[in-house]
């Protein structure tokens, strides 16, 4: 099972410059663990906390097939072979 994960510019240091990398997992949490195994350090940029306390970072957006995962279960969102995952940092700020 392979899922393509689109990596934003700011995180491509973890993927050797690759814009997209394959990963596996039937939930987003497992997919991110698999990403971490191949691209150490990337999990910490996406997720805050461990185990049951883990959550996506506030200013990181992850989409599964164009749906913001916050609306479909967050880290527990389910994945199937051929799904497309996109990671995009929020464009945000404030005075």
């Amino acid at each position, binding site marked *: 099972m392979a899922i393509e994960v689109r990596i934003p510019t700011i995180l491509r240091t973890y993927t050797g410059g690759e814009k997209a990398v394959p990963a596996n997992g039937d939930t987003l949490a497992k997919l991110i663990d698999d990403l971490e195994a191949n691209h150490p350090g990337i999990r910490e940029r996406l997720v805050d906390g461990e185990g049951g306390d883990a959550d996506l970072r506030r200013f990181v957006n992850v989409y599964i097939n164009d749906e913001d995962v916050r609306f479909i279960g967050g880290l527990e969102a389910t994945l199937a072979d051929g799904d497309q995952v*996109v990671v995009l940092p*929020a464009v945000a700020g404030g005075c």
Partner: protein
Amino acid sequence: MVAAVRAAPRAPYAGRVLTIDRATHDAIVAHARRDHPDEACGIVAGPEGSDRPERLVEMVNAAGSPTFYEFDSTELLQLYKEMWDRDEEPVVVYHSHTATEAYPSRTDIGLASEPGAHYVLVSTRETGNNDGPVEFRSYRIVDGEVTEEPVEIVEQLPARSAV
């Protein structure tokens, strides 16, 4: 060490100047004035690697706030997919400050995630919704480090060079 690696994927700007055409500059200022006292935000896309701000995309400030801006997450994805389809990237990322100077705040710096972009700040604190002078300044923000750069306003961007 991480800093050097992160900056590497893109070549540094020649001279590190933001060169922008007057019409795009004026449209960004008009957007900031229109949305005052809330912060306005958007991007100017250009061909990847060109450093040419060619296509202004005004975004909705989903925060609808005088002190914060954020692109709506669904619109953010649409925007990036459109840019990927067109082999574009965000050359300029802009937003306004409505009560403070046109300088990146701590939050702006902490959340900046496009190391190759020109971060443009417009301040409407002096004139609000009205005509008059506004601050229009540009920065690079890489790994928490802010570098201001000159802004050169031209009537038209120079013709695309053959690469």
